[in-house]
């Protein structure tokens, strides 16, 4: 045990090389080729002559694993002699194997545990979920349960049983902070649907105690608002009062982010649906998903309307895309207005069909 003050110096898990199993150590930088064996097994071929197989397992929503399940995964890769695994950035797990036969046994053992193998190539790669009601104070809707409902309907797209035009990533976030980001083909982002309100009593905990300071201090809950929709003023009793100006508010939730006592009407909450984001430089390059529909209901546990809208978007894309086209590439080719028409989306002030802007990422450095 170190002296507590030593804790201010973080212990870092570096260098990464000391964590690698031998099968990877001796091949770092030597990989030359890959082969796909179905949607969930990749054979990595090295110029050292080694072949390493990765078996990709879809994780539960928000990558919430029991230690018992992870121990079982460890036992599976141990029994095949590979003794290593990897977590992906989307919360999936890759088990290693050293021959195709071994990889197929790993796949079978994983499936017997009730998990699915898939998620590479023209499949659903992941549904990334924030933690929402599991630990988060700002969550409006619950992302993990919505993710579960979506996955239950989209399993054949993950396993590759039903092929997609190309890769598909879905991000689900419980609030407008969209912690998973907007670089996914479909993004669901929870929000209030209306301007937030606040708890009249408890809001004082988020405000300066006395109104005299207002001539030199802007309360943080007001300061963080990007559209000046929060006003503060002195109350008659000398305390600070605030007002949320609904006409200006864009529902971004930054006030909620700094104050637990900002509230909302649970009857009006829902999710915005955004399409066409991605990070990779394929096709049109990196782009952010944009609003297709600014609000639809989100009712647990089935999330009937939300799941149906996602399925409709996927089906429309499947029917209209050329092979290899991600949703952004498909939208770019056929035009956003066409996509709106095909989906018969009511157009309003919050979801005008604006074409995807492109040219980001490394393309910002290329000759125009």
């Amino acid at each position, binding site marked *: 045990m170190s002296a507590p003050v030593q804790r201010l110096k973080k212990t870092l898990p570096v260098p990464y090389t000391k964590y690698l199993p031998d099968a990877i150590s001796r091949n770092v930088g030597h990989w030359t080729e890959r082969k796909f064996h179905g949607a969930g097994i990749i054979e990595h071929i090295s110029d050292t002559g080694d072949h390493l197989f990765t078996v990709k397992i879809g994780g539960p929503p928000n990558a919430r694993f029991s230690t018992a399940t992870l121990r079982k995964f460890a036992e599976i890769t141990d029994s095949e002699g590979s003794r290593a695994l990897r977590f992906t950035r989307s919360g999936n797990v890759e088990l290693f194997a050293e021959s195709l036969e071994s990889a197929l046994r790993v796949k079978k053992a994983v499936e017997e545990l009730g998990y699915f193998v898939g998620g590479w190539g023209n499949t659903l790669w992941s549904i990334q979920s924030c933690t929402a009601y599991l630990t988060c104070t700002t969550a*409006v809707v619950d992302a993990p349960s919505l993710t579960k409902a979506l996955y239950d309907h989209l399993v054949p797209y993950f396993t590759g049983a039903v092929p997609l035009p190309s890769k598909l990533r879905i991000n689900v976030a419980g609030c407008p902070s969209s912690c998973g980001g907007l670089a996914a083909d479909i993004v669901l982002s929870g929000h209030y649907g209306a301007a937030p309100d606040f708890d009249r009593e408890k809001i004082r905990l988020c405000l300066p105690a006395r109104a005299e300071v207002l001539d030199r201090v802007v309360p943080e809950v007001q300061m963080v608002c990007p559209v000046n929709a929060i006003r503060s003023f002195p109350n008659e009793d000398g305390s600070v009062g605030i007002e949320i100006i*609904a006409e200006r508010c864009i529902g971004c939730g930054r006030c909620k982010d700094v104050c637990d006592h900002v509230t909302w009407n649970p009857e009006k909450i829902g999710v915005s649906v955004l399409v066409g984001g991605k990070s990779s430089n*394929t096709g049109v390059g990196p782009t952010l998903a944009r609003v297709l529909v600014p609000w639809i209901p989100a009712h647990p546990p089935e999330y009937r309307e939300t799941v149906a809208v996602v399925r409709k978007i996927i089906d429309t894309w499947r029917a209209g895309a050329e092979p290899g086209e991600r949703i952004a590439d498909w939208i770019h080719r056929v035009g956003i207005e066409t996509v709106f028409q095909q989906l018969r989306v009511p157009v309003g002030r919050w979801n005008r069909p604006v074409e995807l802007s492109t040219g980001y990422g490394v393309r910002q450095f290329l000759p125009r």
Partner: protein
Amino acid sequence: MGVNACEEPAGDPLLERGRAILRKLEDGPWPSHVTELRKGRYPIDAYAKGLGQGSSPWYGGSARIPCVLVGFIARRTKDGKHTELHFRVYHPSGQIYRTDDLRKLLDLADEYGLGTVGAMGQTGDLILPIRADCASQAVDALRDLGTDLGGTGDTFRDTAACVGPALCEYALFDSLAVRDFYFQYPDIYAKLSSQFFPFKVKLKVSACPMDCSMAAHRSDFGFVGFWEGAPAVDQAAFRAKVDQGEVSPEEVVRRCPGSAIGWDPVSRTISFDGSKCRKSMNCIRKAFPAIRAGPNRKIAFTIGGNSKGRFGPKLSKPVAVLDDPNSVGPFMTRLLDYWSDRSPHKDRLGDLLVEEGLSSTVDRFKDSLPVTPSGHAPGGSRIVNSCVLSDSERGAYSTWAEAIAKEYDG
């Protein structure tokens, strides 16, 4: 109030409603987070209550761990019945574990924690729920394993890299080593235990333009490998792939987003116009290793991407084309100091760039860059993903969603 806080007595209708929702969430083919959480000791009734009432059950809580200022988050439920404490734990770059090492971490999660982990948080860290009564011992146990808790609040968050050369043949540089380098870079390392920035700072490293770490969007500092000019081609190997029916040259030509590829069917030669190449990786992924990145390898260094900030989600903006990815530490340090001096709390670096402009900000510190700044940022890279709607607007979208739901019912 029950004896065991994890098993409240029946009677609260919202809790009962939530418990019914939890039971449904354990059905269905996909592995359930509820089933996994039930195998451990996570306070599942808090989650049930949230689902039952239709809003998050949590308020910010508090915890004190001696000499630990960064890396843990405490919660308490609005009804006062439950608390939750979790660590954010640094993964090694690439998140690859030998099972022996993983088991030590799982033993720790069982002994000091709740028998459950979030294998991957949104920044790339391991989420480790911990018992509040032994949090301090858990910190020591974690440090003894060679890692630590970190990356919460207004600090340098966990950094992330794609899997890079450990598993991927497309890697153009060692993204994992670059993540390790900046983690240990003195001016960054010194700040891992402090909360002195206006808001969070993220750094992501991708070894090729596929950008698996999402440096183009989700990082204040992004590094992406690419190459200048045309891809390199082995004509004989490419022809062999064509002869084997593995690659259609016409399709490779047609699919190139920059229209940079030509195919001469007579001489059976593929040609590239490097000035038009968009580095989209389309041909390389189709015909690797016959077509691969050109020899002049570079790193695109961008700044100011984020999903959470004053002006909403943004894509990152160009700073410079680097030969050495480890050469911009001094620039980053100065830019972070400038941002810390200028920006109010909860404004990201990208928000400062929106207000002050990219080039006027970068130019202040260009003498600390190893090369001249370059690049051109297209506009329109910001999105508003929330809104305030009238009842009739919500009604219209609800009617639309209902029609689609009917189409998919049964």
